[in-house]
């Protein structure tokens, strides 16, 4: 196979157990696989019929009627499909697949009828990346390693068209890399792997068509006359004879993720486990979009309530979500969440495209700056945003207003009489022990707003005091050293 391919090559990553894995369930450990309590199945419903679409019991297959399964295993947990959770999980895997290629299509096919499975997969056009990863085998290995970090089971199939790749997964074919061999490889397969609508499939089976090759013998016109115009087109797309336009998956511009917990959890330590998975997904999203985030909102809520928001901010934007997780842990260490939660939500709206890095070989200053930024984040996460501030200057003659938290730190100094190093947060009543001497500094200002002052300040040995000229009382306002 030459490295220069003209057409696409699709890698189809099927997620056969997505309806189950998209839910927040404790996974059955290998050792306890026999205890029925750990088993659960997810069912689809159409009308009054319910059937299993995914489960973790070794003796229950997909497509079995839920009633018969429940009759056999009385303490089985049964859950309905959660389409929103499945879609979110599929998107997360789509983001993850961005490390393989940027041409991605999400496939989310519903069951074709009663007792059928859905088909959920992420298809990646890997043709442009083959050279980068050093060939198909290395790329498949990479894809396998990527999925191994996830909770999702997966099956892989490779073929030159998207539909053929899906067929290759369903039929467990070894990779088909060229269009020339595609028809020969697909012909012996049974019709079911096409996932055509059930009436068409039954009609073909009833007229003696056992394999794909039997269908391919007909010309397009006669097939269209008997089944409908879309079927010859589907075959042409399958074999790469007609274009197969699909919308590319792109990560959404704003990040929203909801996660329903299995039960209400009031111990925040226990929340960190599902949160880690969500944070990993968020990191894949950031990497897929090649952006960084400086703010992330984590919400803990009971079902469909507003919930408690935790806004995590970092001083410098990052794509390393461990930073956010550390901040959250720090925050909860100091102020644990007030209520139990059954739902987690992640939200991020603003992203920053990272500037191209300009690193120097010996750059202590930058390293220190990063260490300091991380420290500021930790302090703010635990103590609150207001707890850390810089004393700054403010252009005002009133002593209590001539400084400001996080005010101007560079303003030119104005020639003022000496000022004390300590300023009291609130002037305290003070009684002179003797006659107060020395030159007074009269500060009379602020007549234009709500806090006018009219005072005579005096310098005592250790304290800075004033007499309020409006009521004659003495106050202590500062300490000199």
């Amino acid at each position, binding site marked *: 196979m030459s490295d220069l391919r003209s057409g696409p090559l699709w890698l189809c990553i099927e997620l056969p157990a997505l309806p189950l894995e998209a839910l927040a369930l404790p996974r059955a450990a290998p050792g306890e696989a026999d205890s029925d309590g750990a088993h659960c199945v997810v069912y689809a419903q159409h009308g009054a019929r319910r059937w299993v679409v995914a489960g973790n019991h070794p003796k229950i297959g997909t497509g079995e009627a839920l009633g018969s399964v429940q009759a056999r295993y009385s303490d089985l947990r049964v859950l309905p499909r959660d389409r929103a959770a499945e879609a979110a999980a599929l998107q997360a895997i789509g983001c993850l697949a961005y490390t393989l290629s940027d041409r991605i299509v999400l496939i989310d096919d519903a069951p074709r009828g009663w007792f059928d499975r859905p088909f959920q997969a992420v298809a990646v056009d890997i043709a442009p990346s083959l050279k980068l990863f050093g060939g198909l085998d290395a790329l498949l290995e990479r894809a396998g390693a990527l999925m191994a970090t996830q909770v999702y089971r997966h099956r892989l199939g490779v073929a030159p068209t998207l539909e053929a790749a899906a067929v290759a997964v369903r039929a467990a074919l070894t990779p088909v890399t060229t269009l020339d061999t595609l028809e020969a490889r697909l012909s012996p397969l049974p019709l079911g792997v096409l996932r055509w609508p059930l009436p068409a499939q039954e009609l073909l089976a009833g007229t003696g068509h056992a394999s794909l090759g039997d269908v391919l013998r007909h010309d397009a016109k006669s097939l269209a006359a008997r089944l409908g115009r879309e079927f010859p087109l589907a075959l042409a797309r399958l074999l790469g004879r007609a274009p197969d336009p699909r919308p590319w998956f792109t990560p959404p511009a704003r990040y929203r993720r909801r996660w329903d917990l299995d039960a209400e959890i009031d111990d925040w330590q226990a929340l960190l486990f599902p949160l880690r998975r969500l944070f990993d997904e968020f990191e894949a999203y950031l990497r897929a979009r090649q952006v960084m985030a400086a703010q992330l909102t984590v919400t803990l809520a009971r079902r469909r309530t507003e919930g408690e928001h935790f806004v995590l901010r970092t001083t410098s934007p990052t794509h390393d979500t461990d930073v956010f997780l550390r901040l959250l842990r720090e925050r909860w260490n100091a102020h644990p969440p007030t209520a139990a939660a059954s739902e987690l939500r992640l939200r991020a709206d603003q992203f920053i495209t990272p500037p191209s890095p300009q690193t120097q070989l010996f750059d202590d200053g930058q390293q220190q700056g990063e260490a300091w930024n991380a420290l500021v984040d930790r302090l703010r996460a635990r103590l609150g945003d207001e707890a850390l501030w810089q004393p700054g200057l403010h252009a005002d003659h009133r002593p209590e207003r001539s400084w400001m938290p996080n005010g101007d730190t560079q303003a030119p100094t104005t020639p003022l009489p000496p000022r004390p190093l300590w*300023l009291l947060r609130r002037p305290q009543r003070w009684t002179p022990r003797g006659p107060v001497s020395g030159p007074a500094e009269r500060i009379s200002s602020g007549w234009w707003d709500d806090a006018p002052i009219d005072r005579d300040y005096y310098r005592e040995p250790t304290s800075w005091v004033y007499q309020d000229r409006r009521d004659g009382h003495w106050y202590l306002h500062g300490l000199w050293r």
Partner: protein
Amino acid sequence: MPSRILPEHLLQRRDLWVGTRPAAIAAEPTGHAALDRLLPGNGWPRGALSELIVPRPGVGELGLIVPLLARMTQAGRRVALVAPPHIPYAPALRAAGVDLAQCWVVDANQAADIIWTLEQLLRCPAVGAVAGWLAMADERVQRRLQLAAEHNGDAGGAVGLLLRPLAARQQPSVAALRLALQADAHGTQVEILKSRGGRVGHSVSLVMP
């Protein structure tokens, strides 16, 4: 004189301490020459804790450390004041030479938060000096902070200053340097209670502006 009796090659050894000669201690000048002369290393020890016993706010503790803050900030290193009892007044700090852009204040009420904050700041290589007002600090806490101060020993380490109330004077302390402050007529009386590698018992009266 011992230096005449000892052979030269023994004097070269770094692990031999000669009683009359102060051990080499990495230190930052305090900015008060009279005090520097009494301290081993001629200043605040770096990578170590110094304890200042302050009977009440305003006896001169800020005046004592402001030259250090000015020196550090002008050299581009960050300084932090943790849980100060009053507002460190920006115009006065500025007039004393402190670069406000490098000066930070952390408000915290709980002793646990203050200790945690001090620990974090002392461990950060970007911080040159940390002053913390801490009423309660048993030996365990002090050791924690001492370890944090030693954390960046290679890079010189931060100057850690603990400002403690009068009650702390009687408690044991692991600090490398302990000073007791008292206001007097013209400034501040500083008594050296403990000085690792130096001599104790001296007092010096500092005149402050």
